[in-house]
């Protein structure tokens, strides 16, 4: 028999099987690989598992009568246009209302300076796609938003992490990184940051650092992508000005946001505000991707905003989230070990915890799923450089207070087992 090098059964398998295509995939697609963690995460959907892993806003509390009224209005007054193609940049009425929402937070924008996107996710993807060539450096917080990682990978960005602390991105270290890179003749293409209620970090950037970050962007002429999905989800403290506002129209900030958290994520309606030349390129990218965000969904947002006060809906959500956050913080205080630390978010959806260095949170997840029926997100997914192994993200927006308490208690039990093991194993070798 002739040896078959790299033998596969590809040629005999049906078209639905991936093996046939393996050798044909583009490098950027082939680079998205299977990981033990991803396979673990798929188990978190099992019904008996309490999951604090998701990032889901609450949609149960969206009132049925509001939904009905909006839906009827679309059918009555906008049926044909809501079912038709729309402009790539989005419905003008919606862009006007987006400017109104941004103005609430002190950020000035013009409807011509906005593109409506398929959720905030597409706004991230368009930003990276528009600026990043393979190998280009993107500076991002470490941890960074796990959902941005596939975009960074797809466009082959080289991500350099900047640490976070309780006041957000360490802007002093950001400057150091920029200096180091400059020493190698490298100018970063983008600084990607989530200043408000960081996902997964749970922290908010201080006003002082915001000012300094914008100053750095101006001095060094580096574009900042400000991702702001959670800005309105604040239950404590005073809102801080956005980087967009602090930029004062100088054109070094691209601002991304979404209706996912203030209205509903299933709508997939987000937006990007950017300087005109940038927006023109993004518009081309969006044309290629999908021609335009679903008109029906955009119309839903417009008709909702015409009739109802989104601030009331957000205030209701924030009340729910605040109690759930409190439930999580109480449970963490009781159930987590003394040498663990975690954030105390004033808003957003997540708590980020750091465990003792001998606990690997991917291993903890395996133990937690198998023996305690509870799940969370291990920290590694939020880094592109292999760090995050001792950290974890827990969501409090979706589960009830009782379920959150039970979930944290179970995670605490799994951690206790690992601490005990470390104790008995520590001296053994």
């Amino acid at each position: 028999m002739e040896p078959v090098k790299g033998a596969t059964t590809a040629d005999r398998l049906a078209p639905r099987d991936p093996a046939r295509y393996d050798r044909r995939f583009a490098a950027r697609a082939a680079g998205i690989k299977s990981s033990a963690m991803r396979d673990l995460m798929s188990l978190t959907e099992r019904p008996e598992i309490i999951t604090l892993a998701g990032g889901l806003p609450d949609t149960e509390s969206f009132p049925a009568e509001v939904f009905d009224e909006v839906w009827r209005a679309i059918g009555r007054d906008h049926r044909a246009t809501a079912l038709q193609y729309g402009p790539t940049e989005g419905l003008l009425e919606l862009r006007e209302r987006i400017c109104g929402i941004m103005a609430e937070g002190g950020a000035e924008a013009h409807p011509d300076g906005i593109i409506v996107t398929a959720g905030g996710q597409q706004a991230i993807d368009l930003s990276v796609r528009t600026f990043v060539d393979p190998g280009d450096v993107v500076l991002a917080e470490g941890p960074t938003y796990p959902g941005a990682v596939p975009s960074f990978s797809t466009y082959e960005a080289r991500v350099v992490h900047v640490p976070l602390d309780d006041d957000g991105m360490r802007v002093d270290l950001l400057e150091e990184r920029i200096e180091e890179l400059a020493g190698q003749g490298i100018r970063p293409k983008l600084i990607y940051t989530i200043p408000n209620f960081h996902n997964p970090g749970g922290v908010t950037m201080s006003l002082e650092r915001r000012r300094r970050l914008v100053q750095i962007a101006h001095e060094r002429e580096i574009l900042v992508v400000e991702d702001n999905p959670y800005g309105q989800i604040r239950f404590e403290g005073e809102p801080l000005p956005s980087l967009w506002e602090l930029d004062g129209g100088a054109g070094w900030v691209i601002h991304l946001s979404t209706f996912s958290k203030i209205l509903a994520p299933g709508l997939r309606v987000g937006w990007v505000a950017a300087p005109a030349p940038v927006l023109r390129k993004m518009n081309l990218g969006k044309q290629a991707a999908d021609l335009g965000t679903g008109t029906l969904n955009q119309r839903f947002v417009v008709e909702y905003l015409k009739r109802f006060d989104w601030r009331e809906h957000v205030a209701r959500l924030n009340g729910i989230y605040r109690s759930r956050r409190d439930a999580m913080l109480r449970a963490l205080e009781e159930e987590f070990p003394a040498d663990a630390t975690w954030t105390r978010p004033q808003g957003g959806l997540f708590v980020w915890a750091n465990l003792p260095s001998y606990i690997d949170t991917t291993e903890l997840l395996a133990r937690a799923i198998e023996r305690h029926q509870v799940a969370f997100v291990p920290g590694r997914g939020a880094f592109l450089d292999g760090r995050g192994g001792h950290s974890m993200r827990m969501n409090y927006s979706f589960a009830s207070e009782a379920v959150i308490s039970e979930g944290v208690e179970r995670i605490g039990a799994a951690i206790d087992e690992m601490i005990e093991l470390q104790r008995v194993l520590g001296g053994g070798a």
Partner: protein
Amino acid sequence: MSRRVAVLKGGRSLEREVSLRSGGNVEAALRRLGHEVLPMDADQHLVRNLREQRPDVAFIALHGKGGEDGTVQELLEILGIPYTGSGVLSCQRSMDKVVAKAIFTAEGIPTPKWYAFSEDAFREMGAADTLPEIRERLGLPLVVKPAKQGSALGISVAHEPGEIPRALMTALSYDDRVLLEAFVPGREIAVSVIGTDAPQALPAVEAVPTGDFYDFESRYTPGATELIAPAPIDPDTAAEASRLALACYEALGCRGFGRVDLMLDAEGRLWVLELNAIPGMTDTSLLPAAVEAAGMGFDEMVGRVLDLADLGG
């Protein structure tokens, strides 16, 4: 003859995703063979689904806990639905590497020396105090692995004494019992076996990892591991690998199909690491490569394994 075949896949083990890929390939093959396919996720509705759908036979494409350890097999026995692969007891024996290695040793089949402990032994009986003796007897490096996991999940190699506790923590995350095993450096050889009354060993396949260890990611990322089938080994070694694989298969009382993983050391000696009662059938798995090297084709293999479906044993 066209039959109604339930393909059991997914399930609740940590190898769920792998199983979904194996199951997908099996379903495609069964359809091409003209059977009526009833895909079933082995979830909490499994028994109800099996009762409602009343398949003639079940093809088990599950890996790991629940599917490969005798649990699903026991359910199918109760429901009286013939199923592919080994019976309850053989599954239990092969899933637990400690039990399997004890049986291999009793049968004179070479397997690397090992010691096994439960998490409780460490927590309640001070088992960690024996680590110096274990190190002395097994030497370094040594392999630490969960007793009951597939796909290399939770396996690590400790090169220095200080790495052993870390490796134990890792392995104990995936099972409450672990084994410490002498490390056999060499080439990774897999021999798949098909048949029940007169089992046949397929050509050996060599797995050449691109990293330094054949771990979970390289197993399931196309291109990260190169499979060479048949393995480029001399005919005597190949014959010995087949003999050992068949001996393992019979020692554990397997039927239908199975796969034996071995190491070929620098002196040309073969060591059995484990037997998988339900070999992976993904596009990057060893069994499909062996089947192809045997000139058989994936569909024919699936057909033969289906024909051998049975109850009891």
